[in-house]
């Protein structure tokens, strides 16, 4: 479903702030794969996701989604294939618009916007049903401005928006990192339910090693712009946090990242 080949990206080349974030990343996700991505700060996790989403062009390599080469495609055109939830709860929704208007925008992801009505009656009924899945009481607040919602509610709504129109690929960029533990668990739970119900091909970045092991059928670890660990299936299921750390030390040849990664 997703085919990333030999991706390179350097930020601010030729300046003192030069930072090579991706050094030849290749990754293949099969349809229905739910891969969790872990790694320390600056490992290139978010850069990989942004490269796939098309936030900026990559230096080298290719990206294709569902067999379509999207490497040169601008972000808004790629949106046709991709549902995204950002780390910052403010980023995924339009605060000054109503809940139903946000959903209606998401329902038309990847379609050309015409002079047809921005939201129809039939849609509203569907949104109420969809919002019930989140179990946050948002189904009674269709016409509330999204700016009035809490961070957790906004993130849950963004998740719903990202999956409202079934995406070929779902990108979750530490989407629970900014939430309190209880809300984070709720949003993660909703993620699990939606992903498994629709068999969505998903790439989820997380800082939490336990979450990375519990969720999904594949686990990817990045280190210094490369994918250093990629485990799947039974092997992943049996993985424990200490084993994961040991694996990481072996690959990276250092143990300095242990505490940082455990604590964060």
């Amino acid at each position, binding site marked *: 479903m997703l085919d990333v080949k030999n991706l390179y990206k350097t930020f601010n080349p030729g300046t003192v702030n030069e930072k090579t974030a991706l050094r030849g990343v290749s990754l293949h996700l099969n349809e229905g794969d739910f891969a969790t991505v872990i790694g320390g700060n600056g490992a290139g996790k978010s850069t990989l996701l942004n490269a796939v*989403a098309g936030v900026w062009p990559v230096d080298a390599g290719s990206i294709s989604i569902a067999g379509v080469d999207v490497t040169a495609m*601008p*972000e*808004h*055109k790629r*949106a*046709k294939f*991709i549902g*995204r939830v*950002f780390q910052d709860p*403010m*980023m*995924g*929704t*339009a*605060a*000054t*618009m109503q809940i139903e*208007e946000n959903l*209606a*925008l*998401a329902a*038309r*992801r*990847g*379609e050309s*916007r*015409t*002079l*047809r*009505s*921005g*939201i129809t009656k039939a849609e509203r009924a569907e949104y109420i049903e969809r919002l019930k899945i989140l179990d946050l009481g948002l189904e009674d607040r269709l016409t509330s401005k999204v700016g009035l919602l809490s961070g957790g509610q906004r993130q849950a709504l963004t998740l719903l*928006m*990202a999956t409202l129109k079934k995406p070929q690929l779902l990108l979750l960029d530490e989407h629970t990192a900014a939430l309190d533990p209880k809300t984070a668990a709720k949003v993660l739970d909703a993620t699990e339910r939606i992903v498994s119900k629709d068999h969505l091909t998903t790439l989820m970045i997380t800082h939490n090693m336990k979450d990375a092991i519990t969720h999904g059928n594949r686990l990817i670890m990045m280190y210094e712009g490369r994918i250093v660990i990629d485990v799947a299936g039974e092997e992943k299921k049996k993985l424990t946090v200490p084993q994961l750390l040991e694996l990481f030390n072996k690959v990276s040849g250092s143990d300095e990242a242990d505490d940082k990664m455990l604590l964060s």
Partner: protein
Amino acid sequence: MSGFISALPGAISQGLIWGVMAIGVYITYKILDIADLTVDGSFCTGGAVFVVLFTGGTNLWVALLAALLAGMLAGLVTGLLHTLCGIPAILAGILTQLGLWSVNMAIMGMKATVAINVTTPELLDKLLVSLRFVKDAATGARPFYRHPIIVVGLFTAVLIALLYWFFGTELGCSLRATGSNRNMARAQGINTDHATVLGLVLSNGLVALSGALLAQYNSASEINMGRGAIVIGLAAVIIGEVIFARLFHNFALKLAAVSIGAILYYIVLQAVLAMGLNANYLKLLSALVVAVFLSIPYWKGKYTHVKVNAAAAGGTDHA
């Protein structure tokens, strides 16, 4: 005082005409979240195109349409400078506005003023609005429905209805999403560059239409007629918002509030003039009014912040 009262119908008429421009400013400033300075130039462009075409014998409606299109073109230039060339929106607007001064002069045949000869009754009769109709309608020389307040009021109502419909469509919603959160808009597959350009085109079209109406009303277009237009537009938007924020939640009513804001602005100007202020101080007054109203939300936020801090500090004092 009686001078002020008798000047009111004129002030309301002018306010309504500027209200059309203010609705254009609302589209960029409130919906797209861009302060577009093109309007100071495109307002005059609308007036110039209309007067030159109309005095040249073109049909009034065709001339109005041409003014609208000319304004849209100005908006397109600013939009492309901003999105295609990466120039910050405010600077792109300033560049277009500056360039438009020469363009406007060229349209008017390198004259600073082009007048419509309203002493010819046939020509005057053809006009949609005119300063003279205010008095004529009052004396009964013309039917009441030719009064500029009625004509421009109706014009504004139709305009608001059209915009209400447009911003409820998929395309209109994509414009609102772009202004609200560009990241989100792109993630939903909206081409935010296109949306921004479209908003600027629409806005400047309305601004030029307003310029065409004012040129008709004053029976002349004048090279400086748009100077400070953005400030008047912002004043109308802010006054409308401050007064009606709690009352009007519907989008159509919010647009109506902008128009009413422009009327109130002109009534206040008239009142100040009636008190004997030199008309040359009006621009300073406008700038001050807008500066004060723009500061209010900021100071409000700061004040409430200080209050919370003070309460916390008070708590530790007692402890």
